[in-house]
């Protein structure tokens, strides 16, 4: 029997109310960092258990201890401070990291969290990193003379982090680059930075990209130095699969089958339809199944419902096609 259609998730899950409340209180000094960590561990264990119970194959820690995917690294590294509030859209604001000196790690950033999550389950837990291009693009730069200099320094730090995860036993390492397709003219530089991250890494590497005109840069995306590309395919009605059909594509694909921006849960039939479309272009060994993007903006109920439908659909398709 052929193997394949492994299920996973992109990275983040919604934080339980007790974590959100405590985060606000840590800022006011009413909750100690130690107490905060205990709550984050409890929430991590909760999500590991949910994913196991649902029967997912490759788990994520859910990022209970991270706020923003870029700010998390900047806060834990040297050389960054945080800006005043800037607007993202409408009435949404966030603080942006600011490079003010040479940036880099003084100690591993995500390693202990990965170890903790992996200690809770026999199933593989992905190491989750933010890619250098996205870190640079979503930060202010008051130190480096050029974007490229900033980018390459960040790439070296992400590489060191990836090496630590691989040495600790992480089989899968995902380097999220949602910003990578923002500027076609910088794709080459972004790919070079990602190559610095994955060079010599003994792990299966994944990059998640989202929001962009993928058609314009697909050959470059297909050539990124990772083993698997993770794309949000459901929210574009699986049109991205046409790009794979039209270009030479030698990688594995992690295919989003549930839209993370909608409250409504897809039906099992809808998701099966999507998976079958994926199987028209790639063999089951090369096709992984996940939600379009991180689920942190959905509620726990919505997230679990979407994951449950995803797993059920994969199971039915596997049975129908005799996939192990």
């Amino acid at each position, binding site marked *: 029997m052929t193997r394949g259609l492994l299920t996973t998730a992109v990275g983040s899950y919604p934080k339980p109310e007790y974590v959100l409340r405590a985060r606000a209180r840590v800022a006011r000094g009413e909750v100690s960092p130690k107490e905060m960590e205990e709550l984050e561990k409890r929430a991590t264990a909760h999500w590991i258990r949910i994913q196991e119970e649902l029967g997912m194959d490759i788990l994520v820690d859910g990022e209970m201890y991270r706020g923003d995917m870029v700010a998390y690294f900047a806060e834990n590294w040297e050389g960054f401070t945080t800006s005043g509030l800037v607007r993202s859209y409408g*009435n949404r604001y966030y603080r942006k990291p600011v490079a003010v000196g040479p940036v880099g790690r003084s100690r591993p950033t995500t390693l202990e969290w990965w170890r903790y999550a992996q200690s809770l389950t026999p199933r593989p837990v992905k190491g989750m990193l933010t890619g250098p291009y996205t870190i640079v693009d979503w930060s202010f730069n008051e130190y480096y003379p050029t974007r490229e200099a900033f980018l390459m320094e960040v790439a070296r730090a992400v590489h060191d982090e990836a090496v630590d995860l691989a040495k600790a036993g992480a089989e899968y390492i995902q380097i999220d680059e949602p910003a990578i397709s923002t500027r076609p003219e910088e794709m080459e530089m972004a790919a070079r930075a990602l190559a610095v991250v994955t060079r010599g890494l003994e792990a299966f590497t994944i990059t998640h990209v989202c929001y962009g005109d993928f058609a314009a840069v697909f050959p470059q995306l297909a050539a990124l130095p990772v083993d698997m590309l993770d794309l949000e395919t459901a929210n574009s009605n699986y049109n991205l699969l046409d790009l794979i059909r039209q270009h030479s594509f030698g990688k594995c694909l992690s295919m989003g089958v549930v839209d993370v921006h909608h409250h409504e849960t897809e039906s099992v039939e809808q998701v099966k339809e999507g998976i079958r479309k994926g199987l028209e272009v790639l063999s089951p060994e090369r096709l992984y199944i996940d939600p379009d993007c991180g689920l942190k903006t959905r509620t726990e109920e919505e997230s679990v419902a979407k994951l449950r439908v995803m797993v059920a659909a994969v199971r039915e398709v596997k049975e129908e096609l005799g996939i192990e």
Partner: protein
Amino acid sequence: MITTVVGSYPKLSPDAGAPSLRAAISRHDAGRITVEELRRVEDDVTREVIQEQIDAGIDLITDGQIRRDDGQTYFARGIKGFTINGLIRYFDTNTYYRHPIPERRLEWQGAIGVGDLEFAVAHSARPVKGVITGPYTLARLSQMGCYRDLRSLVMDLVPILNREALALQQAGAEVVQFDEPAILQHKDDFDLFAEAVEGVTRGVTARTAVYTYFRDVSGIHSRLFQLPVDIIGLDFVAGPANYDLVRDFPPDKMLGFGIVDARNTCLETVEEIASAIGRVSRVVSPDRLHVNPSCGLDFLPRKSARAKLARLVDGVRRAQEVRS
């Protein structure tokens, strides 16, 4: 030399006791304050940012676009036929706007920004610019909706935005500015763009401006400089190639000289600004310069925007001293 701004200004002040638009919008969304109370906060913040621009020494100000969620929906909501869809990225910035869709053929239904402009004029000791998202850019940043081609969408927006321009002039705008960054992403559309600019400025006797940003104007510069407007705004931060291109700048036009980076907090030195002015002055005489940041300041935290404007004014003063 006239100092000015491109348009937007950060909405949130870090100062204790300053009115908070963010809090007011959340309270309004939660049904805890009325729309009139929200408008009063918008008024307070608008007065505050007008004063900040004047205090920084800016000669020609805007209302800071405090009441605009973004440059697209502000106009689209005021034009009959548009509905507003989900979030989409604004160019290569890490900010988002809501996607307008022309569901029916577009029609003028009344002036859009006149009340806001009148408010600014009444509360400013300095002349005020009226800023309109130009027809080409507004069309490009919308979905096609019921329109079969871009040209018909652009050309339907032209008379509507022309009426808006005439209304802003009537309301006391010193300059009526059309923001057209999208043409730099689609330079092949220049003929359509030129036709739109001609139409949208028809009958406007106030001084008119077309502002571009985020890239250089290579490939279209000579035609751009011939457009029937008084001021052409270029971004010399994202597009340093513009220094060479303005060698052909016509003697009867003013140059909007965008030199302070409105997308990065790194503060330029007075010398850098003065020497940039010195450099451009070799081909465009200083009395024909409108010196301004590279684009709207809403990408920065408020403190940084304030510092950038103060620095811009210092740089202009230094350049004047050097010359005299």
